[in-house]
């Protein structure tokens, strides 16, 4: 019998069987379910058709993040609906406006992303939880409704694509550049239904924050989830929290049946994803000098403290170009508070940037930084589809926080290496 892949190991545990096979459809037990104010209300409505009782309120997490605080009456009403659901069922893991942030960041910060846990979220970037070896699966509202009622979900055990990354990153090149390059290499359809498992020395050297960026972009290849193989860093994280009895070693056996991809990033340059697809990845050099209207620093991909810090290092003592606005949305209230304390926010504001409440907002063109017709944005987020950040004739270039900050200073797409001291 061949060895098991990491995802097979996790799903086996969650079905209570010694071994599940790739391609099998199984019903698995869920450790945590996440809902937010956009997909949550529909999930609650569907749930109420089938049950009056949440399977386990302590395992349900409700976060407000997409448009916080709400900018329309409709969204305010959706939030009110979610609050009454939370109250009715006694859900204590509820992150109200001003107390949480972007869901995937909140899950990480609050210690839910325990290695080997199965986390289902009514949001496609739930795969971010893979940074610490948890299995995060994004679903729609109806799936979430059934999980609310039963604590179980039907899953097809996915194939695994093991991505081994080698080489040390050069100055000015970041985890985001690696993640975008992987999407460029695999393609937006290249890992559909599969699990991407990340391994190799480059990944070992990455901080957990950088691994969140890596895992976050997994879904842009069509993958069901992305898992960073666990090591001492993720185990240390788990030990701090230990919210559920996780499986600490999350990695495939050497003889498991899987597809392997190798990448050497030692010569990688800063990259951008050109509109309108995430896999349209090119070196920054190819589009350098293209004028921009807005620079956006934030999202579940790159709105963390280290992202804001690298941007503030570039902004320090400089001014943003007059033709550009820089919108910064910290990924969470904790990130915001820490950035205030360390003076990062001050550097951003002094340079002419505006800092919003922690929210998705601009990332999905919902609020706080929506683009007008013909406008160009460089963004640290994860999607650049037609109309993603606003008007259908706006264009979004995805890049690292450093490239975003450097471009804001120059008023055009800029290689950050020129501005990094």
């Amino acid at each position: 019998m061949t060895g098991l892949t990491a995802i097979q190991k996790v799903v086996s545990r969650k079905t209570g069987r010694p071994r599940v096979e790739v391609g099998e459809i199984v019903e698995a037990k869920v450790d945590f379910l996440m809902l937010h104010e956009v997909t949550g209300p529909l999930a609650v409505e569907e749930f109420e058709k089938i049950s009056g009782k949440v399977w386990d309120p302590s395992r349900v997490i409700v976060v407000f993040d997409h448009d916080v605080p709400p900018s329309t009456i409709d969204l305010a009403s959706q939030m009110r609906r979610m609050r009454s659901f939370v109250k009715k069922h006694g859900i204590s893991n509820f992150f109200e406006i001003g107390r949480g942030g972007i869901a995937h960041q909140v899950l990480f910060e609050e210690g839910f992303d325990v290695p080997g846990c199965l986390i289902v979220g009514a949001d496609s970037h739930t795969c971010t939880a893979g940074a610490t070896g948890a299995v995060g699966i994004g679903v729609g509202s109806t799936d979430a409704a059934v999980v609310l009622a039963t604590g179980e979900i039907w899953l097809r055990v996915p194939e695994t694509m093991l991505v081994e990354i080698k080489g040390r990153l050069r100055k000015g090149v970041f985890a985001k550049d690696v993640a975008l390059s992987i999407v460029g290499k695999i393609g937006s359809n290249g890992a559909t239904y599969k699990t991407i498992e990340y391994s190799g020395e480059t990944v070992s050297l990455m901080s957990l924050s950088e691994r969140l960026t890596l895992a976050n972009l997994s879904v842009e290849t069509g993958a069901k989830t992305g898992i960073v193989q666990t090591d001492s860093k993720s185990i240390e994280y788990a030990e701090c929290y230990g919210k559920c009895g996780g499986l600490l070693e999350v990695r495939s056996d050497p003889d498991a049946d899987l597809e392997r991809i190798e990448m050497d990033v030692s010569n990688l340059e800063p990259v951008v994803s050109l509109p309108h697809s995430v896999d349209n990845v090119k070196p920054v050099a190819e589009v350098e000098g293209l004028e921009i209207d807005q620079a956006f620093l934030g999202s579940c991909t790159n709105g963390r403290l280290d992202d804001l810090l690298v941007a503030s290092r570039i902004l320090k003592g400089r001014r943003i170009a007059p033709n550009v606005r820089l919108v910064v949305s910290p990924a969470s209230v904790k990130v915001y508070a820490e950035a205030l304390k360390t003076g990062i926010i001050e550097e951003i504001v002094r340079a002419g940037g505006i800092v919003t409440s922690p929210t998705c907002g601009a990332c999905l063109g919902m609020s706080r930084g929506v683009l007008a017709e013909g406008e160009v944005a460089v963004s640290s987020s994860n999607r650049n589809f037609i109309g993603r950040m606003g008007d259908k004739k706006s264009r979004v270039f995805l890049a690292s926080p450093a490239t975003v900050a450097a471009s804001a200073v120059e008023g055009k797409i800029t290689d950050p290496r020129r501005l990094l001291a």
Partner: protein
Amino acid sequence: MKIRGRIIRLGDNVDTDVIIPARYLVTHDAEVLAKHVFEDYYPEFRAKASGGAIIVAGENFGLGSSREHAVIALKHSGVKAIVAKSFARIFYRNSINLGLPVLVIREAEGLDRLRDGDEAELDVANGVLTIIKTGEKFSCDKMPEFIMKIIEAGGLINYFLKKNG
């Protein structure tokens, strides 16, 4: 289970942001969502789909966000089934969960012969798409038995009620 409708041809990588932009995610009212389906990208879509349509698309249909709103908008516009070379997984699940048949058509079937506006019939259980006028048949992968049960029940909620009711 047989479905009839006019074919609407779409290309590769049709994402959920173009099916229903985020500015309409403030509601899950099916009528409102259907009104704005493909608004930026294919404004005539709704008119074409009303009265029953079968989408025939290329690779990676429905990539992007987990918004079930996309499936609701399509269904309520008149889409009865989607046949594509491949589907993005969350969209695929969402469709099944809402009882919308989604079938993978085999590469070699020569999609060019399926033309926009042709009246067609889809035999869901057997995975056969027939053009009414010419009688020409195209085969799709059959859906796994478990998924077929959900589709036949009319979606996951109904399946659940049936199973537990």
